[in-house]
């Protein structure tokens, strides 16, 4: 058994999108829209994804590269203000081991004709399975996929 450790860390990512807050928020709130960009790398098997976008509702996603470990994401929405903010906490498991517990805040702010998105994540990384730098990198990749989705 791995030694039990908890590494605390947070990161913030900011992006500008040309689209207005209602459109960017919609890419998080609408299930088909979210599935279009919120997924693992292209070589992963297609994620199994469920989503119930309301306070207290759950979102789950799991997937992985062919033959590789299975990552599972399980979130609970804790606060939603339409077109303005989304707060959820989530767990990540890797092959059934809990690797992190995080609290995510996404703020949508008008920025000219577009949107400034501020993504803040506060995480507890468990037992050395994962680290904050990797999570930040993965999140930046997701926001790149969001930008591509919004531009199409």
């Amino acid at each position: 058994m791995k030694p039990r450790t908890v590494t605390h860390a947070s990161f913030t990512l900011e992006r500008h999108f040309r689209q207005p807050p209602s459109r960017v928020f919609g890419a998080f709130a609408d299930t088909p829209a979210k599935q279009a960009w919120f997924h693992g790398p292209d070589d992963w098997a297609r994620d199994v994804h469920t989503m119930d976008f309301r306070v207290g509702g759950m979102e789950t996603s799991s997937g992985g590269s062919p033959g590789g470990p299975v990552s599972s994401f399980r979130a609970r929405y804790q606060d939603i203000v339409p077109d303005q903010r989304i707060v959820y906490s989530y767990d990540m498991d890797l092959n059934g081991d809990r690797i992190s517990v995080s609290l995510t805040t996404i703020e949508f702010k008008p920025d000219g004709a577009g949107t400034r998105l501020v993504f803040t994540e506060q995480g507890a990384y468990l037992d050395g399975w994962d680290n904050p730098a990797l999570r930040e990198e993965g999140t930046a990749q997701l926001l790149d996929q969001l930008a591509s989705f919004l531009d199409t």
Partner: protein
Amino acid sequence: MSDHSVAHGTFVVERTYPHPVEKVWAAWSDPKLKSQWFGGNGDNPPKVFEFKPGGRESSAGTIPDGPTYNFDVTYQDIVPLSRILYSYDMHMDGRKISVSLAAIEFWPATGGTKMKLTEYGLFLDGLDTVAQRQEGTIGLMNQLGAFLDRQ
């Protein structure tokens, strides 16, 4: 309500209690014990207490001539005698004032137990602050210490 602000804050509270880990752990995991120090004297036990990953805890309390607070927890990771992670919401008179992630770690220490509580919080719409939450949490950890001493 036009203020939809989010203030992020974090704090750490560390204590060494002169009691074995098993006893400190029980004060968190047993609802009868927890209700004797966590925001009451056993007179206001939680309405829901499911101490397991994915389980909930829910309690409410009213300050005399003051607001009613609701505390709603989801336990996210539990390793017996080692750590507890949970997220929680606080409501004041029905309005959400914060969403937080708490991690409590326990280690055997010379003559007792070292405990470290780390909280990340979002304080919403200007209704609460990290300074107030830290002060309140320090008060709770002092109550835990006093409870353990008199047990």
